[in-house]
């Protein structure tokens, strides 16, 4: 590239790098702080580690050991898994049935019901807590895993159904005609033809829902109450902020524990995640 061109492009690169810095520095600060000793954290900024980066003795994983074992965040991590994996699986499963029905079956009220579904996507969850919580309490579902599985399943359904439906309705019709000629029932058509084809779409929805549920705080606060034995990571950390708000060694390590799994999912399956987001917003 000619020097003049390079000069002309400098503002572009600088702008982009400033953005990148603003998006990197806060997270980097969290990570570095989480492996420093509590006395160092309170005394100096995390950026002071750089001049003596290789002199050793600055970093340890003690904060993580403390927060996972002593503070019981390990248990919460398992709870988060126990909440998000089944809830995601159930909602993806139920949504794919509904999506097939809406995409390829004829029944009265199909259009109206689907519009209801589209409308339900943006209903604030705040509208639903007050009527459901008393029922949950009466049935003994509040503070239990099945209770929150059901709630997350239902809350995720409109979006999940919408996404899978938009994928399934794009499947060529000939496929169904030949299946019908072969005498396949709708269920067989769905299960052995449509579902295998839809795996990329289902993967997107699964990841999307999983991250949503894993990161959820509000629904957990409502339906799991203050019970520490079932609290997911997000709720546990929110409690830490209230009770130990100045203990940065705990908060930073805990926050990173909560981010670890989403980050792994994000970087390994980013393609599907992006596809889910795109399908949800700019369909057609």
């Amino acid at each position, binding site marked *: 590239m000619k020097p003049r061109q390079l000069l002309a*492009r400098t503002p572009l*690169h600088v702008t*982009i790098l400033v*953005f*990148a810095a*603003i*998006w*990197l520095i*806060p997270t980097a*600060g969290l990570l570095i*702080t989480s492996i420093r000793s509590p006395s160092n954290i309170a005394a*100096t*900024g*995390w950026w002071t580690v750089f001049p003596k980066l290789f002199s050793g003795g600055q970093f340890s994983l003690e904060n993580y050991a403390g927060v996972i074992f002593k503070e019981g965040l390990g248990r919460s991590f398992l709870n988060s898994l126990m909440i998000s994996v089944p809830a995601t699986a159930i909602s993806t499963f*139920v949504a794919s*049935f*509904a999506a097939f*029905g809406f995409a390829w*079956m*004829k*029944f009265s009220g199909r259009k109206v*019901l689907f519009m*209801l579904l*589209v*409308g*339900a996507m943006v*209903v*604030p969850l705040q*509208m*639903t*807590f*007050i*009527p459901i919580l008393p029922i949950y309490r009466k049935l003994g579902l509040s503070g239990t895993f099945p209770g929150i599985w*059901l709630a997350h399943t239902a809350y995720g359904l*409109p979006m999940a159904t919408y996404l899978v439906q938009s994928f399934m309705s794009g499947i060529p019709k000939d496929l169904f005609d030949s299946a019908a000629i072969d005498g396949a029932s709708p269920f067989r058509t*769905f299960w052995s033809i449509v579902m295998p084809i839809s795996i990329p779409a289902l993967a997107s929805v699964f990841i999307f829902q999983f991250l949503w549920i*894993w*990161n959820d*705080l*509000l629904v957990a606060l409502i339906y799991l109450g203050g019970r520490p034995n079932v609290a997911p990571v*997000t709720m546990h*950390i929110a409690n830490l*902020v*209230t009770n130990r708000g100045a203990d*940065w060694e705990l908060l930073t390590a*805990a*926050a*990173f524990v*909560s*981010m670890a799994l*989403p*980050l792994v999912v*994000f970087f390994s399956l*980013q393609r599907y*995640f992006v596809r889910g*987001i*795109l399908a949800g*917003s*700019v369909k*057609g």
Partner: protein
Amino acid sequence: MLGVKARRRRLSRRFAETLERSRMGRLLLRSVRPVGQWFRSGGWRPWSFVGPALLLIGFFLVYPTIATIIRSFFGRGATLFGPNLEFVGLANWKFVFTNSTMLMALRNNALWAVLFTTFTVGFGLALAVLLDRVRYERLIKSIIFVPAAISGVGVGIIWKFVYAYKPAYIPQIGVLNAIVVAFGGQPVGWLIERPWINNFALIVVGIWMWTGFCMVILSAAYKNIPKQLLEAARIDGANEWRVFRRIILPLMAPTAAVVGTTMVVMVLKIFDIIFVMTNGNYSTEVIANRMYKEMFNFMNYGRASAIAVVLLILIVPFMILNIRRFAAQEGGR
């Protein structure tokens, strides 16, 4: 010997004949037969596919919406309905629109809606266009997109630490105050200085979290624009700014509108960040956080319901927009 099926058929025919003899029986038959037909013709089949989802949505989203609206006209107490609940008419609504904390929450939500939406969509658009011109696009995109994958709680802690405050005579541990002090300023209590600094500080956190989401969608739209179009304009002598104003912006406006409405709907319900970073103290209250407090701290389901309905009312226009857009898509297929 008759087969089981044939025997069953004969039995049911005899049963029907017996019923035909009485008037009540005939009435019963007439009302039951369509159901049988419906079963035999397979009319139930679609419902076995969509039924479970509809039941769940009905129970968890539709019924509660109606019940909450009704509940907003009844008094305090932590039950949905009951004999000891007092009908209070519009009292909860009066509270929502006159109480000073509620008014503050409404103001803050409006502030969030304007600033958050403008900047997430604006930055997203700028990044979509700028990043297309450099070779390290994917790397930067990943960096800016990451916050979309982590929780509001995690993001809240990341930024609480960025905003950390120490008195001026000891070293700062928050990066922002360290910068301020390095330039000779006094450390700022970013989350405490009311009412503007702390609210802006919180909105910055929201923008940081959601810009990547907007960027990803807008970038996909940008890459769909035929590049010959832009080239043609450049050859005709249009400068970059003109190309952006006259070609890129109009072509991307529909997508930007969709992203913008998604952001508004999201930001009206903003909760996690506030709950973790300030819990609505120091004039940073928002609607969703206030609703949670009314529900769990003050056990006043009446007021909490009214607040939730306010959220719904604010979102209804966008709901209608969504449904319309969907109907248009359906029509165009």
